[in-house]
């Protein structure tokens, strides 16, 4: 009597990835956009899903006035944000509504975020409880975002999906992680990031084990989230480089981060088989690119395409760093 534990029936072939850390300020949105943009440069079709109610990713790539307009219109039938799609579930008036993503460039698409996604997030707690009570409504609510993404992936022939998550351990991030095939952990080189990895490991363990119980409880014909995210690696970022090496007070945290990733993520989640065999836990490194990041957000382009700040060398270094990460993602997700 257990559900379709392999996930949604006819799940699109796209690999779903989230750059997730519940600690704020570790570059989730910046990394998400720049990795996705680089994957599109490498010929992959990428869908960005702004599932953070703060809508930072949407503000990164869409004109402020247009984003305000989208948010104003998101309740109307012509709305085009994630909230427009999930609203029927929040209001218990039906299933998700299919929306068209915004095309950012020839192979890069965006499902814009919305502050009202936080309303849906409140409902998610109820849906989660209802799953334990074996209520179909609960399961339908939990998989709604995943089904929306599935439809968009099918209609736009998407290769990779990147969820941009908010800095918290909330129910929305829980369903995103359970829907993903892979996750990446961004981390800054400081004490708080090392500490955060410990609590992150515990949360991930609790989410995956609870969902496995629910899979057993689910009605047989229900579509479910796969609940088997694999660890693509961690990404230390925003560290300073001086004379070719990482500055001393940040370098010590690099080794602490690696130790913590092994102990608090890989060992803690060992029973769920999250590690990719033979892969290094470090996916890459993104040093501090100074003014390029702020200029990239203003211009709405990847760091390596900024026109108004930085030097050609900085842009080339940024391009190389993100290219290496993107190529590694392609290799490891095959």
């Amino acid at each position, binding site marked *: 009597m257990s559900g379709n534990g392999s996930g949604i029936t*006819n799940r699109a072939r796209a690999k779903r990835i989230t750059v997730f850390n519940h600690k704020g300020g570790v570059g989730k949105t910046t990394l998400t956009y720049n990795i996705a943009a680089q994957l599109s440069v490498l010929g992959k079709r990428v869908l960005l899903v702004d599932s953070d109610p703060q809508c930072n990713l949407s503000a990164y*790539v*869409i*004109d402020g*006035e*247009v984003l305000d*307009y989208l948010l104003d219109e998101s309740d109307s039938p012509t709305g085009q944000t994630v909230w427009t799609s999930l609203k029927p579930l929040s209001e218990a008036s039906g299933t998700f509504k*299919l929306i*068209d993503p*915004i*095309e*950012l*460039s*020839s192979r890069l698409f965006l499902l814009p975020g919305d502050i009202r996604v936080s309303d849906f997030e409140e409902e998610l707690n109820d849906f989660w409880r209802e799953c334990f009570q074996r209520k179909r409504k609960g399961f339908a609510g939990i998989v709604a975002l995943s089904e929306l993404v599935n*439809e968009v992936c*099918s*209609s736009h*022939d998407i290769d990779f999906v990147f969820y941009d998550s908010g800095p918290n351990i909330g129910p929305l991030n829980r369903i995103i992680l359970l829907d993903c095939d892979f996750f990446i952990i961004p981390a800054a080189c400081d004490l708080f990031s090392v500490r955060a990895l410990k609590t992150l490991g515990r949360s991930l363990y609790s989410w995956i084990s609870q969902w496995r119980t629910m899979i057993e409880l689910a009605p047989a014909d229900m579509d479910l989230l796969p609940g088997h995210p694999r660890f693509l690696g961690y990404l230390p970022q925003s560290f300073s480089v001086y004379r070719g090496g990482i500055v001393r007070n940040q370098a010590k945290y690099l080794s602490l981060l690696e130790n913590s990733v092994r102990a608090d993520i890989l060992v803690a989640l060992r029973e769920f088989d999250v590690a990719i065999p033979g892969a290094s836990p470090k996916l890459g490194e993104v040093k501090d690119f100074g003014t390029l990041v702020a200029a990239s957000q*203003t*211009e*709405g*382009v990847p760091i390596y395409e900024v026109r*108004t700040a930085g030097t050609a060398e900085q842009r080339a270094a940024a391009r190389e760093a993100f290219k290496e990460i993107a190529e590694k993602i392609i290799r490891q997700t095959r």
Partner: protein
Amino acid sequence: MDDDNDDTGNSAGQEHSDNSAAQALSTIIAVLSRLDEASRLRVLKSVSTFFHDSFVQIAEPPVARSETPSDRSVQARPNFSDDFSPSPKQFLFEKKPHTDVERIACLAYYLTHYRNMPHFKTLDLAKLNTEAAQPKFSNTAYTATNAANAGYLASATKTERQISAAGEMFVMALPDREAAKAAMTSARRRLRSYRKKDE
């Protein structure tokens, strides 16, 4: 008399040409119907390339997947009454603006001629820019003001703008940059001479 002969000759020629076209069509259909869909598509594309023509609009075969509302719209057959104007993305791709200000001029031209919006606000330009899958402007209002200062846009009402005559000529001349530059220079010269007359 000669005219009558000419008419008869022309109509006979026309009839002959119609018959040949019908025969050709019937042969092509007969041959193509023996092929599978992918081969048929390949042959039609090759014929189109051979004749250096883009008049043959060949639809890609639908990818096998579950049907969604957006699929239905993609697969819908075109009607004679369908709008074949270029998409904003296609329009900008063809015009190849080099700067943000030139992009604003192209967007203004598109709003005027393809969206029937001779007067527009900054938001309209920003929305069209998003629709055209272009990078966002750092500050759309500022860029629009720069475009107005450069002569591509003019004021319409208190809160709206319109494309200027010079802006229209500039965009029409694109992607030929020399012609576009010449159009803009001549428009500016004319504007200066009017101003001098007024003084």
